[in-house]
């Protein structure tokens, strides 16, 4: 069974009097353990697709099945639970909480999952160590480099053992050298069996994945494996 199953997913927005069709009946399956890149120019609908995949938004048409549950029928709070349990987000601008140190940032999903403080700390410390930041746990985001911040974000995304790692332009705010490091980290995570979805407009970033889905005008333009 597919981990992700989108069937005829549509998303319309009301922009004043105009109705914008961001996605038009997109059907898509992603299996557990895949490493997928979603590409497309701005306005193509790839961000909308990512928001839907990440359960941040709900479709106006079609069904979305994630890990066996019908996400398109859930309410706000249930979606929050699904996001907490099933999805790890990695953002272009890292989106760490500026006043909290690395440890606290990584702990946050565990807080919302209701894990007791002691256990939470253990898990978070282990995750930070696994991304190579064992010696930076009490640094605040502004005391870390871009690459280190993104590693904290990766640790935060992984800490709840989600089904999907969802990365939106993960290297967009990094210099090319750190970008490569982060992509290497993704590679490693993929090898460990994590399902990774990367949204990007950089061909070079997309080439690291195993499958590239190109979106144009709200439709899937192509869906091909990466030939290495």
């Amino acid at each position, binding site marked *: 069974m597919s981990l992700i199953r989108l069937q005829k997913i549509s998303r319309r927005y009301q922009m004043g009097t105009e109705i914008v069709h961001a996605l038009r009946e997109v059907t898509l399956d992603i299996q557990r353990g895949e490493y997928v890149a979603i590409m497309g120019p701005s306005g193509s609908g790839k961000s909308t697709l990512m928001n839907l995949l990440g359960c*941040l938004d709900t479709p106006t048409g079609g069904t979305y099945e994630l890990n066996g549950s019908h996400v398109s029928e859930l309410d706000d709070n249930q979606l929050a*639970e699904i996001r907490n*349990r099933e999805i790890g987000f990695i953002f272009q601008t890292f*989106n760490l909480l500026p*006043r909290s140190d690395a440890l606290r940032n990584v702990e946050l*999903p565990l*807080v919302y*999952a*209701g894990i007791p403080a002691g256990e939470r700390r253990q898990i978070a410390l282990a995750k930070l160590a696994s991304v190579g930041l064992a010696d930076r746990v009490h640094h605040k985001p502004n005391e870390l480099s871009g690459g280190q911040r993104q590693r904290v974000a990766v640790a935060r995304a992984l800490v*709840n053992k989600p089904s999907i790692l969802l990365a939106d332009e993960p290297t967009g705010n990094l210099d090319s050298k750190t970008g490569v490091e982060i992509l290497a980290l993704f590679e490693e995570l993929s090898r460990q069996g994590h399902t990774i979805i990367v949204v990007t407009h950089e061909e070079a970033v997309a080439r690291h994945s195993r499958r590239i889905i190109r979106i144009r005008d709200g439709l899937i333009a192509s869906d091909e494996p990466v030939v290495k």
Partner: protein
Amino acid sequence: MNFLTELREGLLISWSAIRANKLRSVLTTLGIVIGILTVTLMGTAIEGLNRSFVNSISSISTDVLYVSRQNWLIMSRQDWLQSQKNPKVTLPEFEAVQRNMTLAAAVVPVANVNEPVKYHKRGSSSISVFGTTEQYPATSGLTVASGRFLSAAECDSGRPVCVIGFDMATNLFRNESPLGEKISIAGHEFEIVGVLEKEGESSYNDDNAAIVPLQQYLYTFQHVPEYTIQVKAKNIDQIDDTKEELRAVLRRFRHIAPGDPDNFAINQQDQFLELFHRVAGTIGLVGLFITGLALFVGGIGIMNIMFVSVAERTREIGVRKAIGAKRRTILLQFLIEAACICLIGGVIAILIAWPATLVMQKAMPATLSPMIVGTALLVSALTGVLSGFFPAWRAARMNPVDALRNE
């Protein structure tokens, strides 16, 4: 996530948010400090006023009825004119009451006049002289400090003896015992047989008075005085029945036709209390309303700053929602932040109110009671929750996609 963990997390987050914006938090808190301070001081003042009033009428026993020509409290010109027409209360009426009352423990006639007093070279130009019977302590609640009260025999025969109030005793007799000494009241000699205990705070006390047998009083000072008949009820629970019985006895004695109004007044402590509570209640309501406005303004300040805080942290809210914070969690986070700011304000206000109350004590028996402190803290927290609710609600309902897109 259970509620307690959420609460603890909310507190942690709020604390760091408050610390991150120190100046802003201080300024916002100031509004609440002023609001809570004024409300607290107002409450304390009202309580003090109440207490000082209750003290001032404490010598009027609650179980005693006072029959007199006029009502103690005349509320209108008409009442006053009416009461002027009432006949004086007379001695035969006292006797009728004493004879006919079944619910009375004691019935005492009291006549009162102001006269000068002299003892050797010392004296006073005006003291209260009460003419009454040996029953007087029963209705007035007086106790004798030294010597004794007037005896029944003295009252019946009208001997020229007297019992004097504490202040009078200390003023006229500096270091000697007044017992057995003779003082001159309006030129008539009276032998002192007793000194009363100090009554103190009450406004209607006998500290500067001389009490003489009624017979002697009638003979010496006033032949036809205006009496007050003091009637002590046997049972405080039957005070209303006692009052009705007393009224019936008087109406019968005065031959008042059914349906006609009383031409006498039966007074009791309740009247004072009732009037006072009405006045104090109004003052209190108006005062609390006005000071409440200050708190309201403080609350608006909180609401305003919470809106700013929510707007500033839109992205943070987006991130929190993305990683699994529910609406309730976000709502609680901001509510706790608002409540914390207000609670801190409340605590500061009480720390200021405390010395302020000590200053106030110079004018009235005001104390910062635990009740007021508790209420102030509760009200401040409530202000926070109420004024924080709208901003927090807005934060809780934010769409994560829009919130994350916010720069």
